[in-house]
């Protein structure tokens, strides 16, 4: 029996991850070079149809490692299911896509088996019978070829995009599928996953805002931001700021306008207490109408402003909020 390459295919909520095909392509090309067998495994709960999907590709066998305890994903359950499975099939090489999930469980699995992982590889080759895996160093300036000095199984993960997922070869006839009912003790699982966290949609997309109320140093203190917020609420606009405000942490970075932040072009840009250094101006000069409020009549912001209000924003904004509210109520 020749040596075996095992590709661990990732699925999430019943869908195969696209990058898994890339790992499979890598497996196919290595198998062609080495003459080894190519197998794949997919883990989850009730995943027969997924296994079928994988079996349509050119490989020698597909395992569906099945257990109710594999859903939802936990690193404990995955490592616990894979360790005896790999130990009994003793593949020479275990290939995985370098996903967040794999980064999570692969070190634990390899350590549990007394092995090491060559992670985030961008290529592989068979040089005179020795398998070399290419890793980037110095942010891609260098490529290092690394090989295993330990006994098999060897664990390798591949960087997203290192291989062409669409180049995975289909099989003439489907590969056999074997279902493995993994036995995972409940006590083995120490993690209690909560709802899957979806990265919050960026709270604000300033580039889409029609009205922007922007504050600068003139706002003086963090607690005064609330004043600008009231004006923004009254006008139905978004709050933004110049760099010093975001730098002090008074508003999040994604509300920063200027050369080191966002470039915006709303219908109305209301600048409160912003002096108007060029670094800020380049981020908002495309606004249709610019109203600037500043104590200093020589502030450079007035050079780009359509309406200049020379005065203290603390005197001007509160009555403005009231007037806007009144006007809106009347309308």
């Amino acid at each position, binding site marked *: 029996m020749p040596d075996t390459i095992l590709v661990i295919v990732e699925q999430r909520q019943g869908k195969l991850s696209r990058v898994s095909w890339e790992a499979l392509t890598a497996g196919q090309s290595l198998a062609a070079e080495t003459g080894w067998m190519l197998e794949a495994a997919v883990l989850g709960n009730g995943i027969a149809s997924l296994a079928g999907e994988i079996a349509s590709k050119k490989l020698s066998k597909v395992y569906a490692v099945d257990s109710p305890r594999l859903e939802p994903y936990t690193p404990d359950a995955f490592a616990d299911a894979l360790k005896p499975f790999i130990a009994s099939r003793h593949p020479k090489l275990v290939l995985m896509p370098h996903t967040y999930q794999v980064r999570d469980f692969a070190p634990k699995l390899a350590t549990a088996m007394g092995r090491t992982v060559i992670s985030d590889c961008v290529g592989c080759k068979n040089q005179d019978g020795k398998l070399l895996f290419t890793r980037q*160093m*110095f*942010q891609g*300036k*260098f490529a290092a070829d690394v090989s295993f000095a330990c006994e098999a199984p060897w664990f390798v993960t591949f960087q997203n995009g290192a291989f062409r997922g669409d180049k995975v070869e289909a099989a003439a006839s489907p590969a056999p599928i074997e279902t493995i009912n993994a036995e995972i003790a409940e006590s083995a699982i120490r993690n209690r996953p909560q709802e899957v966290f979806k990265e919050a949609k960026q709270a604000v997309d300033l580039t889409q805002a029609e009205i922007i109320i922007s504050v600068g140093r003139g706002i*003086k203190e963090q607690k005064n931001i609330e004043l600008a917020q009231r004006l923004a609420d009254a006008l139905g606009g978004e709050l933004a700021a110049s*760099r*010093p405000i975001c*730098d002090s942490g008074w508003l999040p*970075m994604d509300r920063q306008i200027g*050369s*080191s932040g966002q470039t915006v072009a709303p219908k109305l840009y209301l600048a409160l207490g912003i002096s108007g*250094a*060029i*670094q800020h101006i*380049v981020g908002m000069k495309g606004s249709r109408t610019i109203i600037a409020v500043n104590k200093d009549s*020589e502030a*450079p912001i007035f050079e780009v402003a359509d309406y200049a209000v020379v005065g203290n924003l603390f005197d001007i904004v509160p009555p403005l909020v009231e007037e806007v509210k009144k006007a809106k109520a009347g309308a």
Partner: protein
Amino acid sequence: MLVFRKPLSGIERPQMPADVVIVGGGPAGMACALRLSQLIDAHNSRNPDSQLSKENIYVLEKAREVGQHCLSGALLDPRSMRELLPGFEKEAPIEATVSKEAVYFLSEKGKFKLPITPPPLRDHGNYVISLNRFVKWLGGKVEEAGITVFTGFAGSELRFRGSRVTGVRTDDKGVDKEGNKKSNFEPGYDLNATIVILAEGTRGSLTKQLINRFNLDWNSNPQTYGQGVKELWELPPGRMAPGEVVYTMGWPLTTREYGGAWIYGGKDNVVSLGFVTGLDYQDPRLDPQHVLQEFKKHPFVAALLEGGKMIRYGAKSMPYGGWWALPPLAGDGWMIIGDSAGLLNSQRLKGIHLAIKSGMLAAETAFQALVTGDSSSTALSQFRVRVDSSWIKKELWKVRNFHQCFEHGLWWGLFHAGLQQITGGRGLRNRCPSTRGYQRMKKLADLPADGGAEAHLLGPVKGDGKLTFDKLTDLYHSGTKHEEDQPAHLVIQNTDVCNERCIKEFGSPCQSFCPANVYEMVDDATQPNGKRISLNPSNCVHCKACDIADPYQIITWVPPEGGGGPNYDGM
């Protein structure tokens, strides 16, 4: 709360062996790498049986691209380049050959042209270059020669074993403002090197670590510096011929400050102009960026610039302590070259040719060490012997006392410079002492409140937006950019000194000497003086003035995350 950059501790770092690591890819570092490559190529063709590899020779460069942090006037004395690459003029980016030069002495409104150009300022045969373009070209040669240049990587620490330098640690990437790892964290590498060559330019941060650790400068004159602030202008055609060179002395400085201006005509109606102010002025409120703006208001300069457009801005300090301020140039596993060593001729305002020559001599020394396998202090001290027997010493020896004498004011300096000219550099004594620039700074209490004769040079400039510019507008034209979410790379030992002492004693000169508005005293009612130091590190243009001029010497400039910094295209 300010968190300052330092290499993270308790983490595992990738280790890489290296034969030679050159820290800094400026003219010195690139010349060094290229010469080393030439010597290895020659050796390999002579000795087919004992080949030397270039694979483990690395240049670290903190800029994202080679040359992006290089700023100079610049005039190039081609002597060393002709030794390094005979016939280099055919392919190097040269703006113009110097065709005409003049030296003016300026009063507030008038000017007086020196009837003859003093010999040190005669530049016929020199080239006007953009150092940025020149180094970019030279860096290309280095890479073609098969030497690896790591751009975007700074040397953050030297590694030591006993008295030996054993390598360089590069910067940690992906560390946030609070000093925590971000998701893109990548630890700095340990390059374990047989030989480390420091070519960091002016006031090198690793050079400073090395000198302080072994007190290397115990027998040197203190290094003194000037602050060069430069603007690149595009002028209407016909204003200034390519290759035309103007130097000025006098206005806007008074006779108490050391400094002067240059204006060089380049290609395509682009003119380089700048002002060097000695970082040994007395009034802490003096602002070198302000000095340049005042200079431009002089009728002579204003007429030249009328109708033109400022296109780039930048600043850099320069070491002009000269021969007596040189630290030891080599030791156990290390050498220092170029501006990091202080190899600059302050009388001619030129250092590029010396940087290149010193890089070549260090390369010859390193090559010997690679061949013999001996990189001990004894072996590498041959570098100093090479410098001493080269034209570097001949040139610097003649001007060994030049800058020191200007510490007593302009008139004394000029008199003494003349005396040196006829005594082969000796003047009144063989070795004139010098004072650290920051020690000459006076406290506000000892200065006229209105600034006296220097009033026109103090504090921030408003600028008219055409001829003169406020600092932030100038700064915008430096193209400087940094990852915002990282610890401050201006390491202040104790901010209480800023908030409690400096503000009262000196009036926070960091706000004035910094050409990039990095330092700012912001209102803070909880502080005894109502203000607190705040840093804008992402404004930094890497000039090092703060590290040099701070009167308490509590600021240490360390490299920010690699890749950040100014964009000195064409400077």
